[in-house]
């Protein structure tokens, strides 16, 4: 089993992600620096959270134009599962690998707190270990997580089960349209989500609701 974590200058939840994957799978992921031109063969590729390039200009914008992104796009086209968490999600939308955009939180401040997520599609390779409609706990920590897409795109997302996670009733922390917290691409192998499942994977985190996401993604390829 091979997991790859892509690292940009300013990534800062890379260590969290590597620790989580190591604890869950028993394997330590390999890391790939943003200037690389190739991604080694992997069963799962992750873009971790952080503030790549300080989130200057727009969150994820500069990272999305890094050398590694061509390779990432090819990897996506080959059907390899890819997860972008937080800054990773922002980078994936900026790179056009996922539709829509992540705008400044409606409250205009950074927000770090626990929210509830509803599993709105338990049949993706990232959510298969959850139950359809299940409500899980998950922390968020971001400044630009306000998901936006135009009507046409939203309709496609909603009609095709591409909204995988939704902020449960009353817990939307950022004003995202339709309470969207995480989506997949058309093919179903690229997931972007704002919340941080990697920060809720063990008793020490007061719970492990985030664990099954990685178990789903890794289990499928095991």
């Amino acid at each position, binding site marked *: 089993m091979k997991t790859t974590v892509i690292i940009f200058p300013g990534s800062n939840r890379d260590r969290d992600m590597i620790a989580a994957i190591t604890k869950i799978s028993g394997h330590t992921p390999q890391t790939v620096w943003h200037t690389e031109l190739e991604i080694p063969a992997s069963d799962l590729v992750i873009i971790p959270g952080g503030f790549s390039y300080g989130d200057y*200009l*727009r969150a994820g*914008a500069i990272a999305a*134009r890094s050398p590694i992104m061509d390779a990432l796009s090819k990897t996506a086209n080959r059907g390899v599962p890819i997860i972008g968490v937080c800054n990773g999600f922002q980078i994936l939308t*900026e790179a056009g690998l996922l*539709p829509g955009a992540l705008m400044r939180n409606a409250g205009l401040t950074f927000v770090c707190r626990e929210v509830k997520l509803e599993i709105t599609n338990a049949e993706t390779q990232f959510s298969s270990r959850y139950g359809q409609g299940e409500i899980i706990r998950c922390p968020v920590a971001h400044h630009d997580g306000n998901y*936006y897409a*135009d009507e046409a795109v939203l309709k496609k997302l909603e009609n095709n089960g591409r909204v995988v996670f939704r902020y449960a009733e009353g817990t939307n922390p950022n004003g995202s349209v339709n309470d969207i917290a995480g989506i997949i691409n058309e093919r179903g192998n690229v997931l972007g989500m704002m919340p941080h499942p990697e920060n809720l994977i063990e008793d020490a985190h007061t719970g492990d609701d985030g664990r099954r996401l990685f178990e789903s993604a890794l289990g499928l390829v095991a």
Partner: protein
Amino acid sequence: MALFNARVTVTLKNGVLDPQGKAIEGSLSALGIAGVEQVRQGKVFEISLNADTKKAAIESLNFMCEKLLSNTVIEDYCVEIVA
């Protein structure tokens, strides 16, 4: 080659909600400033660049906007040469 000073303005598309603009409207009225109908916030880039002609400069600026400076999913841009 000549040096051009350009101003690129990037604003949210009509119809895209602008929470920062809304917040400013609120603060302005809290400050007792009346008469403000609407505020929209955008970004401006002052760019100095070398190009052969003004036309080439504008082309290059448009390219920058498409490639990096604006996110065309949510933003419009406008390029001006100021000097």
